[in-house]
């Protein structure tokens, strides 16, 4: 089959590789119908996630048709059309039982590596480095899905791929980010980053009762989409974000602040330059430029929610400010399984059509070029979907 493989920094290629096979009794094989490139794939593309190996197949947002089943998968049938959560979960451990699916104890074959770095291993993930399992991803014609009796959800007839594909990651990620803010009716929520996750976070915050959402980015097309999603916007290239937020909230600061940017933040201050230099020299693994500003912006007693990916260590974290203001932090990989049904219901009843963020529909062969376009945000690129 053809698959998009990582071969190093800024080097992904479409290779011909063997087809996947059932390796465990609870596996399934899917024939991919749609798969997307995620902003977090760019962290791999940019070489910031350790434990990647040349030849790894990328992709963790995918859906398709079941073509083969392991003997223990009883709830699916050949021919079923399913979406698959990007985090892999067993359904039987302490964490799965508590709906903390991305903390699953049993899905990472390389758990000892992650445990050495993090103290305990999170769940395995598709196409996201060997530390997180080394599972081949879904930017390919076929994919093997472990614990297929737990993750995949059948798609009801009448819904297009475009409408449900983002249930695999970014819609639940945006929703969980908003849910983590414990939004009270009328709250003001500020969101850094108007990429796909940021956009879904805006919609979700409003669904959960926010009175006002302020979205921050520097790209006109993304700010425009943020406005059409229901947010007020700030372009951080034009205004001082801290001053602007003070002015918009009567000096208090937002009740909740969301970092939908993550480890490769851009910024204009001295600290942004400092982080860029340190990350380039590998003295710092993550650039927390946005996160620092978020901590300074949030109102006293407010909540900071982090859906943006961080991988390692950050410098100059203003923990004194966070402590002094009594902030609450919530973060982590999305417990996708938890949100599949409720969010599918919102799509079915017409509350949201997630396909509105798609800017590029491409073939698998066009994917390497699309990584470049997406990375540099050329051609107004916000979301690429690979269709088969």
């Amino acid at each position, binding site marked *: 089959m053809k698959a998009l*493989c*990582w*071969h*190093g*920094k*800024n*080097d*992904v*290629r*479409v*290779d*011909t*590789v*063997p*087809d996947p*096979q059932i*390796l*465990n*009794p609870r596996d399934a094989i899917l024939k991919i119908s749609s798969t997307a490139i995620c902003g977090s794939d760019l962290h791999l593309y940019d*070489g910031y996630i*350790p*434990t*990647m*190996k*040349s030849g790894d*197949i990328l992709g963790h947002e995918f859906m398709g048709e079941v073509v083969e089943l392991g003997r*223990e998968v009883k709830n699916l049938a050949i021919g079923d059309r399913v979406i698959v959560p990007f985090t*892999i979960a*067993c359904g*039987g*451990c*302490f964490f799965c039982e508590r709906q903390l699916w991305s903390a699953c*104890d049993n899905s*990472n*074959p*390389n*758990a*000892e*590596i992650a*445990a050495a770095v993090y103290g305990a291993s999170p769940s395995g993930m598709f196409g996201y480095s*060997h*530390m997180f*399992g*080394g*599972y*081949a991803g879904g930017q*390919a014609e076929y994919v*093997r899905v*472990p*614990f297929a009796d737990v993750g995949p959800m059948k798609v009801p007839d009448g819904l297009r791929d475009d409408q449900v594909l983002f249930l695999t990651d970014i819609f639940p990620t945006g929703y969980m980010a908003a849910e983590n803010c414990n939004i009270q009716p009328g709250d003001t929520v500020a969101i850094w980053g108007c990429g796909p996750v940021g956009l879904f976070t805006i919609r979700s915050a409003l669904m959960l009762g926010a009175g006002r959402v302020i979205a921050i980015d520097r790209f006109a097309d993304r700010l425009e989409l943020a406005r059409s999603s229901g947010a007020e916007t700030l372009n951080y290239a034009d205004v001082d974000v801290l001053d602007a937020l003070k002015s918009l909230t009567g000096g208090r600061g937002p009740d909740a602040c969301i970092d939908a940017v993550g480890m490769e933040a851009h910024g204009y201050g001295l600290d942004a330059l400092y982080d860029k230099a340190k990350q380039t020299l590998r003295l710092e693994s993550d650039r927390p430029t946005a996160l620092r500003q978020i901590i300074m912006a949030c109102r006293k007693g407010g909540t900071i929610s982090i859906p943006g990916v961080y991988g390692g260590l950050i410098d100059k974290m203003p923990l004194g400010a966070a402590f002094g203001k009594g902030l609450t932090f919530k973060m982590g990989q999305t417990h996708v399984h938890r949100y599949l049904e409720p969010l599918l219901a919102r799509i079915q009843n017409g509350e949201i059509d997630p396909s509105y963020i798609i800017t*590029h529909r491409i073939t698998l*062969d*066009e*994917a*390497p*070029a699309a990584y*470049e*376009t997406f990375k540099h945000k*050329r*051609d107004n690129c916000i979301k690429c979907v690979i269709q088969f």
Partner: protein
Amino acid sequence: MTTINVNKIERIASVVGGSALISFGLVRRSWPLSAATIAAGVPLLQRGWTGHCAVYAGLGVNTADQSQLPAQEVGGVPAGKGIKVEQHTTVNKPVNEVFRFWSNFENMPRFMDHLESVKVHQNGCSHWVAKAPLGTKVEWDAEIVDAKVNEFISWRSKPGTSVPNEGIVRFTAGPNDATTEVHVTLEYRPPAGVVGATVAKLFGEEPTLQVASDLRRFKNIMETGEIPTTEGQPSGRTSMPATPATPTMPGATAAPHSDQHGDAPIDQYKQQLKQEAKVHKEENLDQAEVGSDLSFPASDPPTNY
């Protein structure tokens, strides 16, 4: 006066290994690494030459005097001469289920990577076969020392084995009755003495890590009925002709093909380890299993595991 406290085989290995390290350091001439290699080589050479090991002296270990191995007569690990490992996990199953699975030693090769087979005899004794370095096998007989249903099992190897070992596993109810805490303590004496395991440890054959991953696989089986794996999945490493991507989007350029591995620091580190291990292996340093874990972190497990 220094006493001889290292046995003959270990002395020869030390001379060979020490010389190799020093030669490597001199030839390599990359100074921080060379200096460290030479610094490691000199005491090893000295240890072999003089037969005195300061580390052994400090630990009260003497491998030269075979008469100091009385425990060989009773089995188990002689006091002060073993490597002790402790690991813990919580299994999301009730104690009786967890105990039942563990107490059948024939299940052990399913989750213990190094074991090839365990055969339990009628009299409660068992015969163990483990995979050893360089494709060889190590076999031993073990007996149950004591056991209490749903509480603990302790065992030790029978006298005369080449890998004296003993251990105890305790089972206690976890935070609620549906969960079980498993506490494993085991002690073993590796074939090539303390230095053997120390060298092995340098190259990833970390006993603590080994037991941790064995215990994790035990938990995997108990909770899910299978062990997660990626062994046998496709990747671009599999030898098939690559089709170059055609750039079709604005601003795109075709990625140059190269065989280089990733830029990630861990890859560079692995390359470095591999280089160093190769030198050690070629010089046949000690009898430790080197190189087997060098593909760590790996979804494709080492072939000589």
